[in-house]
């Protein structure tokens, strides 16, 4: 008996149920996807580190022929450190490389054909046991001049242009070489070197730029992060120079984007689920109203209230379970593809997604559970239906009390007046529309905000994430003055910078020093002001949080045996060193007994596009000739963005837009259909009076617009006002406490307008069902 009831429910609701399944598929897909990735990757790195036998810490020093004391001292230190279980040594060289992509022509200056960057080279044969490269793909053939790239570089820097066996032409320190791509490997080390044959390595190595690497594995129970801090502080006191990569930090950085993406997916999944349950609630209470007579009749036939309820609850539970099942299948089909196309490129490691029972259960419980609860709640009314009253009078809510917008005194065309009348008639429906459209407004306005700041004005995001607000860095052979550079056309601001490493409250901190911070128009300060006097300092937010430092506090800074006291004048944010940074003035160095000898000039452009910025830098190069060693251009970085972060950010914009459109689409399908069924009779009557289908479609479409616009406006404002806050929340771990991306007043407007236009077109399109309703059919029934 119950089965029959459920079957007939499904038959009546089929197309509704299909759109309902789709929206459930979307939300549970996103939720399970997010959970799978978050949980999967956090486990993945632990197993991967073991599988790759990764070094806990990689320490390296620069080799200088004339002075080996630093190198020897570091080596001795490691040799005798009781915390170290085992270590291996290897030599690397850092070279400037030019890689060409399109023609055999290194003279090309267009970055479309060519990329220049610094890369670390090593000899494959030298490798020992620790963190040996694990090949993702490797040629069986022997090549005379093999080259092995980290997978992440192959897909990123090398622009995914080469496959195994391809010839790669490169200029290394100005000399032309040709290699054959023989393999790509996964690694968890931040060093990610390029491997050559021993012969080739000797050919290309630059004796002035040799790194001696110590791949260190620590004893069990030693905390890597604490160990690194202590060791570096020790080195700092002893005046030793060494650089490091630590496994936890590399993993943290790698996981970072993954966690953000997953968190966003989960949040949106939850939002969509909210939309789903709202629609279910609306749908069920409408169907009760429509079927009140039927329900009454069924009751009089002997069905009990709980049977009728159960039938409804089961109908929706079955549907959402089906949606959930479909989404799970889709997930495990698409996850490997997604892993291969994006995640692998982001992390440089291979992850074989296993079936994740926890994610499965959580998603199932959430999606199906929410459906059950809401259908349980919204069917309460069925129990109280009295068969006699139901059959004779229907539901009381059918009585209308107020005749809003009387035709006689409302001006405008009749279709317009009728839309107005129905726009404000049904409170429950209006709240539903406003709620759904507010959700859409939030996602839309955030995506407008992101698209503008990330996809269109990428420089905004770049500056937010970068150290200071510089757009180009110039590295000079000798101490330099920024003053002359300021006068070069196309240069807006220029200032010199030098960086030192010092200890603040026991934390090793990167301190950037400049002779005049006043030239930096935006130091990414979140509080206070730039340092002006010699005893002033600005520190990074993360450092301030970790060590409980506030603006106005006095802090001790220790470096190479000297100590100075500084007043904190402000807090700044940067992703650099995860925000463990400080900034002080050139005069402030005196207390630490360090001479201000900057080699870097940081600058911003007065031009705003890639081509002009390139011209400015080429001009500078011409003026300074050999004195200018190297320069980097942020516009170049943005334009040739092999940067996975930017890629992910753009993908997220895309996800936001898709989510908005899907919510609009699915909720409108459900809504419009319900409304049409509900007003079938009235539509029939209007047609008999001589209304055409297009008039009635326009009336329906227009009648939804006021609430749609209200919802969109509310949501867009909420989204717009919180977009930066939302971003700050995401970026906080990275060191960005207060996102300051551009918020422009047209953004919420754009979101409202685009949302309205899309919805209008969609509702108009969906309302074509009105055509099928005829006046005659109504009368016949």
């Amino acid at each position, binding site marked *: 008996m119950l089965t029959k009831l459920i079957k007939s429910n499904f038959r009546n609701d089929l197309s509704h149920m299909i759109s309902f399944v789709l929206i459930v598929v979307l939300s549970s897909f996103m939720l399970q996807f997010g959970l799978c990735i978050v949980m999967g990757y956090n486990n993945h790195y632990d197993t991967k580190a073991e599988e790759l036998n990764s070094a806990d810490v990689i320490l390296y020093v620069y080799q200088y022929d004339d002075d080996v004391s630093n190198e020897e001292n570091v080596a001795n230190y490691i040799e005798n450190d009781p915390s170290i279980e085992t270590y291996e040594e290897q030599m690397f060289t850092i070279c400037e490389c030019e890689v060409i992509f399109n023609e055999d022509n290194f003279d090309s200056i267009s970055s479309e054909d060519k990329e220049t960057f610094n890369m670390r080279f090593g000899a494959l044969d030298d490798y020992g046991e620790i963190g040996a490269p694990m090949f993702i793909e490797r040629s069986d053939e022997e090549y005379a001049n093999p080259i092995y790239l980290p997978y992440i570089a192959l897909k990123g820097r090398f622009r995914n242009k080469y496959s195994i066996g391809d010839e790669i032409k490169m200029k290394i320190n100005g000399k032309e070489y040709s290699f054959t791509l023989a393999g790509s490997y996964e690694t968890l080390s931040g060093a990610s070197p390029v491997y050559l044959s021993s012969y080739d390595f000797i050919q290309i190595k630059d004796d002035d730029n040799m790194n001696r690497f110590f791949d260190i594995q620590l004893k069990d129970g030693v905390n890597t992060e604490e160990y690194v801090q202590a060791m570096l502080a020790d080195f700092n006191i002893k005046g030793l120079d060494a650089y490091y990569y630590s496994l936890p930090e590399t993993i943290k950085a790698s996981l970072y984007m993954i966690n953000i993406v997953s968190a966003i997916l989960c949040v949106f999944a939850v939002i969509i689920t909210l939309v789903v349950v709202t629609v279910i609630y609306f749908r069920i209470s409408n169907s009760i109203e429509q079927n009140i007579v039927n329900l009454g009749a069924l009751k009089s036939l002997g069905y009990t209230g709980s049977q009728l309820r159960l039938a409804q609850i089961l109908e929706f539970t079955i549907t959402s379970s089906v949606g959930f099942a479909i989404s799970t299948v889709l997930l495990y089909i698409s996850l490997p593809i997604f892993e291969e196309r994006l995640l692998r490129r982001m992390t440089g490691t291979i992850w074989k997604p296993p079936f994740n029972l926890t994610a499965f259960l959580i998603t199932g419980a959430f999606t199906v559970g929410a459906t059950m609860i809401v259908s349980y709640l919204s069917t309460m009314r069925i129990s109280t239906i009295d068969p006699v009253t139901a059959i004779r009078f229907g539901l009381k809510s059918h*009585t209308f009390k107020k005749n809003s917008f009387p*035709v006689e005194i409302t001006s405008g065309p009749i279709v317009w007046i009728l839309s107005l*009348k129905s726009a404000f008639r049904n409170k429950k429906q209006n709240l539903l529309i406003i709620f759904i459209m507010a959700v859409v407004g939030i996602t839309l306005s955030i995506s407008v905000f992101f698209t503008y700041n990330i996809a269109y004005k990428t420089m905004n995001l770049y500056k937010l994430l970068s150290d200071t607000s510089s757009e180009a860095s110039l590295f000079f052979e000798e101490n330099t003055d920024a003053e002359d550079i300021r006068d070069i056309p196309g240069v807006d601001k220029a200032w010199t910078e030098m960086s030192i490493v010092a200890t603040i409250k026991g934390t090793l901190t990167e301190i950037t020093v400049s002779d005049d911070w006043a030239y930096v128009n935006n130091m990414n300060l979140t509080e206070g002001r730039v340092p002006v006097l010699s005893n002033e300092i600005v520190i990074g937010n993360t450092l301030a949080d970790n060590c409980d430092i506030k603006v106005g506090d006095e802090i001790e800074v220790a470096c190479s045996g000297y100590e100075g006291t500084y007043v904190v004048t402000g807090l700044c944010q940067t992703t650099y060193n995860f925000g463990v940074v400080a900034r002080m003035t050139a005069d402030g160095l005196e207390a630490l007994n360090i001479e201000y000898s900057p080699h870097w000039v940081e600058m911003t452009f007065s031009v705003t596009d890639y081509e002009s910025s390139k011209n400015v830098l080429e001009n500078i190069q011409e003026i300074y000739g050999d004195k200018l060693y190297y320069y980097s251009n942020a516009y170049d970085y943005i334009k040739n963005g092999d940067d996975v972060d930017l890629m992910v950010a753009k993908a997220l914009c895309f996800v936001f837009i898709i989510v908005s459109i899907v919510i609009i689409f699915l909720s409108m399908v459900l809504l419009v259909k319900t409304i049409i069924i509900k007003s079938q009779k009235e539509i029939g*009557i209007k047609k008999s*009076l*001589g209304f055409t289908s297009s008039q009635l479609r326009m009336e329906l479409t227009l009648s939804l617009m006021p609430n749609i616009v209200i919802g969109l406006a509310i949501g867009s404002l909420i989204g717009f006002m919180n977009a930066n806050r939302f971003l700050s929340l995401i970026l906080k771990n990275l060191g960005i406490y207060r996102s300051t991306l551009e918020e422009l007043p047209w953004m919420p407007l754009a979101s409202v307008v685009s949302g309205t236009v899309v919805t209008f077109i969609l509702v108009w399109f969906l309302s074509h069902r009105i055509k099928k309703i005829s006046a005659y059919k109504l009368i016949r029934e």
Partner: protein
Amino acid sequence: MPKKSIIRTEKLCKSFSTGGVQRHIIKNLDTEIYEGDFTVIMGSSGAGKSTLLYALSGMDKASMGQVYFSDRNITNFTSDQLAIFRRKHCGFVFQQVYLMETMSVMDNVLTAGLLTGQNKKQLAAKAKDLFKKVGIGPELWRKFPNQLSGGEAQRVGIVRAVINSPDMVFADEPTGSLNSSSSDAVLNILTEINQNGQSILMVTHDMKSARRGNRIIYFKDGTICGECDLGPYKTGDKERHDKLRAFLTEMGW
């Protein structure tokens, strides 16, 4: 003076297929409905009276043959063209009242009226005038249809049907669901508007209603098998009653 025809059919056919079986309800019908008449269609239940009414009014489409309405062939109009055509030329009164439940009595009428682009002030005045004629007082104008009695609702329905001064008012058993005093009131109104020149085509199977017409058509076996001219209606016309009874008996009613 010969009567001017408003509706004319040529070999009008209408058939339905139910479960693969073709049933011909109207078969090759040639007929004319005249201006100024109160035409009544009678016949046994299921004969196809309503089908004929809606085919003539362009609410439904003919299966074959032609329907001319004021010399315009409306047979091949699209449903939108028919809708636009109905606005000006047809008014409908149904057995179930079919007022729009979501709006007030006044709005129900004005909504129909505004479709023909009439001036709103004049239209409202006309509506109020009509309401008074049918005995719907101002206290009812702002009420909703479900707050009206059946008779009141049907009278509102009539006002809505005539608000655009249509060429023809089509009424399908307008008194079918009313008690006798309400029925009389509705029939009186129909008679009155007919006497003021409004053409009416009404379906009924009730003699009391049929007596109001001046031309009675008997529909049977898919065609008109007889008609009877009763002349203008007068109250208490015994002779008229007998004539109608004789006609119906002859038709096998």
